Every structure is written in structure tokens, then in C-alpha cells.
């Protein structure tokens, strides 16, 4: 996706938008809309409301593009506008912000792997070693359409913060820094959310591709 506008710098994109270039606008909408929606759903879980927030965001972006100074990347700037728009909307709807889920995820502990799959910490010989080791995933089924559906569903079922981070990092291919800047989260918290999301998706893959024998 990045390829489509790889040659255009932020300055060129902004200049084109200010000139009213519709193709540039369409390109950006196609490139970022799915991600904007994911991030909006952190704050407003309803799909319909999140879509409205994204629409509002684009209008605000257009309204403010003359004042864009390039102190951050265009992408970061657009996502910051989205986050602010979504927060305002969430407040209006009387929702408390998922502040701790985004800014302090470690406060709510979550193991990457079910603790029951390890020997207890006071085991005589192998404390904390695997008791129920991961079952190998058949490589040839990994990229089958059904497997990808399982992964898609697993991502949908994640808590919204984890879903947003794994979508941006692993589906859209953003860097850790881009996600940090767009969501205004710390490096550590970005990593915690990504870690948990990948662990949950891995678990779904294992359950589907290598189910426990009855």
C-alpha cells in the first residue's frame, strides 16, 4: 500500500490537497481509512459511530490542512486528529475513556500462554517449564483461506486496543514508532499490546490447526 504514494513526500501530498486535488484525497482515504476505523473503535466501539468519527476526521483534516506545518508526519497528524475526534465523541456519548487499556495495559495482567500449560514455579526439576508444549502448526495449511479467516476472526475478537495495534503493525505494516506516534502511547505499552494480541492470535491458530486430542 505504501508503494502507491512512495514517491510523494508529505509536502507534496499537502500541497496537492491544498490545491484541491481529488486523486490525492482519494488515495489517502483508501490508504488510511481501514486503520482510522480500527483506531476509532478503541474509543467508540460501535462500528456505525466509529465510521462517523472517521468521516468527521477527514473533514477536520481538510479544514486544517492549510495550517499543517509538517512538525510531525502527515500520517501522525491525521491520526492525532482522529484520536481527538474520537475522544470528544466518546465523552459526548458518556463513555469513560479506555485510558488504562491504552496507557497502562500492564496494570491488568495477561499471560501470553495459559499458566496451566507450565509446570509450577516450585517444581523440583523444571520450574516454569512447558507441561503442555505448543503443538506444531502444519506449514502447508498456514496460508489457506480458512486459516486466514480464523486469524481474521481472532483479530476481530481482540480487545479494541490490541486489535488496533496488531492491525497497524502486522496487517498494515506500520513501524513501532509510527504506531506510538499515531496513538500517543509509550514504546513499552505499544509492545505490551502487540505482544498480547499476537499471543492470542497464535493461540487461535494452534486451536484451529493443531487441536488438542480428546
Amino acid at each position: 500500500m505504501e508503494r502507491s504514494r512512495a514517491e510523494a513526500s508529505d509536502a507534496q501530498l499537502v500541497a496537492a490537497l491544498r490545491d484541491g486535488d481529488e486523486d490525492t484525497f482519494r488515495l489517502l482515504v483508501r490508504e488510511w481509512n481501514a486503520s482510522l476505523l480500527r483506531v476509532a473503535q478503541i474509543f467508540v466501539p460501535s462500528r456505525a459511530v466509529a465510521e462517523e468519527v472517521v468521516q468527521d476526521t477527514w473533514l477536520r483534516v481538510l479544514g486544517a490542512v492549510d495550517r499543517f506545518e509538517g512538525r510531525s508526519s502527515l500520517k501522525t497528524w491525521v491520526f492525532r486528529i482522529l484520536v481527538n475526534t474520537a475522544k470528544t465523541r466518546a465523552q459526548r456519548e458518556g463513555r469513560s475513556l479506555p485510558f488504562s487499556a491504552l496507557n497502562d495495559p500492564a496494570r491488568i495482567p495477561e499471560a501470553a500462554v495459559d499458566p496451566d500449560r507450565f509446570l509450577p514455579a516450585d517444581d523440583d526439576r523444571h520450574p516454569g517449564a512447558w507441561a503442555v508444549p505448543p503443538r506444531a502448526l502444519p506449514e502447508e495449511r498456514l496460508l489457506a483461506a480458512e486459516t486466514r479467516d480464523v486469524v481474521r476472526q481472532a483479530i476481530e475478537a481482540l480487545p479494541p486496543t490490541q486489535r488496533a495495534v496488531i492491525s497497524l503493525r502486522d496487517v498494515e505494516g506500520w513501524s513501532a514508532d509510527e504506531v506510538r506516534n499515531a496513538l500517543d502511547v509509550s514504546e513499552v505499552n505499544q509492545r505490551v499490546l502487540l505482544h498480547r494480541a499476537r499471543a492470542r492470535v497464535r493461540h487461535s491458530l494452534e486451536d484451529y490447526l493443531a487441536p488438542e486430542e480428546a
Partner: protein
Amino acid sequence: MIDAVALGCQEFVELVTAYLEGGLDAADHRRFDEHLADCGDCTEYLEQIRQTIRVTGSLRPEDLSADAEEALIKAFRDWRRR
């Protein structure tokens, strides 16, 4: 050998993302590599996280509906006439 700083499997799985992100300090990185070298189960776990990243990376981002895109383009044209 009694090694107070050796990594257990349960600790290993919690460090996998930091390892892949290049976020472990030198000491933890060494403990991680040492554990990896002689634990087949954790080698498998790390491989499965890589497989997970690969499958997730094969998903296409959701396309915008044609209606939603046209609504935005219309808003853009209105804005252009400002």
C-alpha cells in the same frame, strides 16, 4: 549447574515480542538465546509467533465501501468550493 539467572519457559514466552522488536538489553538477550539454544518447545513457540505474524501480514486491510468513499469525495468537492 545452579544458575539463578537462567530463563524458564514461562518467562521466555513473555519476552518473545521484546526479542523480535530488538528491545531486550544485552543480558536478557543472552539469556533468551541460551534458552532458545536448548529448548525445542520454546523454539517451536517462537516459530509459531513468526507464523502468526506471517498469516496476519497476508490479510488484506478492509476495503472502504464504495458508498463511504463517494460520501467522502463529495465532502471533498464541497470543501474545495469553499
